């Protein structure tokens, strides 16, 4: 599958929501934990060798499961392949919890659900659709699932 790698690399250089040096393993035989610079930008998680400017890899964080594993460790796996896990060993339990929380909220789908929720609540409380003033009430992406194509 082709993709605009150049733009992804550019995205990896943007200011991150969260970045830290974390030991990480990819689902390969051996599962060796290696120290990486892990950077969350929009719905992508980039990981770099600590002394390199370009990421080794990127994970799109849609339809994924963030699991708190044992102490200081969390994992990311994807719906269609739940056994293949990317593991992350944090320095502290606190750091681990922060990352789990941040990653759970990192998907576009989560953002969409939040938007629909807030829209409904504001409408209930004030009687007005808050998206009307932006002229985007009818956009497909802001509708409840049932109405979308």
């Amino acid at each position, binding site marked *: 599958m082709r993709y605009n790698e*150049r733009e992804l690399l550019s995205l990896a250089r943007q200011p991150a929501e969260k970045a830290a040096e974390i030991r990480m393993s990819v689902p390969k035989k051996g599962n060796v934990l290696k120290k990486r610079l892990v950077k969350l930008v929009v719905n992508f998680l980039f990981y770099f060798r600590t002394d390199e400017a370009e990421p080794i890899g990127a994970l799109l964080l849609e339809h994924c499961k963030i699991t708190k594993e044992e102490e200081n460790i969390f994992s990311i796996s994807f719906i269609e392949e739940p056994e293949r896990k990317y593991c992350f060993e944090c320095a502290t339990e606190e750091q681990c919890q922060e990352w789990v929380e941040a990653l759970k909220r990192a998907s576009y789908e989560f953002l969409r659900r939040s938007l629909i929720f807030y829209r409904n609540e504001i409408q209930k409380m004030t009687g007005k659709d808050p998206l009307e003033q932006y002229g985007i009430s009818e956009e497909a992406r802001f509708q409840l699932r049932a109405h979308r194509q």
Partner: protein
Amino acid sequence: MKLNERSVAHYATCDSPADHTGFLRKQLERHHHHGTSYQRCWFVLKGNLLFYFEERESQEPVGLVVLEGCTVELCEAAEEFAFAIRFDDAGARAYVLVADGQAAMEAWVKALSRASFDYMRLVVRELEKQLEEACRSLAACCKPPRRSSSSGRKRHLSNPALQPLQEKPTTLENGYSTWSIGGCVAGGATCTDHDGGQMKPPPLPPRRRLAASSAIGSQASGLSPAMLESPVSLEMICFSKLHNWYGQEIAVLRREWQERQKRGHP
């Protein structure tokens, strides 16, 4: 750079709803000096990701365009109904796409220009703020606001703690409407007394238990009695907490509805 391509491709083809789909002609990436050629592909927009497939029924996308940091503009290609996705990065190639007609082109340009994660996040943050303000003004207001119901679900006006409201909401300058209750305007303004000076918002109404039947009526206002008893506070503003909290209201509503069904009411 590696990408979790298998998962990305799965996301493209799974049955989660797409934001926009359709056939577009895509300018081929090889640069010809004489003329450009196009390939017709099936495009699927999901969130900030634009996938394209060889055929509508293809099992796997041919390609993906990540839509962060881009602009979408009409373009003066030789083709009619052409538009381009351009990236901020100077020297980056533009994706030139050609729609089947004017309406299709406009729909695509609109959908793509609002596709970025950044844009979505902006809107969510704005709504978060608005909800916070709405909650705050509810907590600060002298009487709980209530929409007067014209749908036939009349509330018991025998409850002295609640006063009837004006029929129409007033519109504030900041674009959203609230109800005017006596002289006190909700929506972030503080109540003024007769002196014209500003005073602190009056204390919250005392807790009270409302009868089950009046609880049904109060649903019309979007506020359940349980909520009035534990006023929504700023600490609850985080989405998941609010989600759980409002979930209680839904559970109550459901139960009541089911009971009414059993009793044979519509």
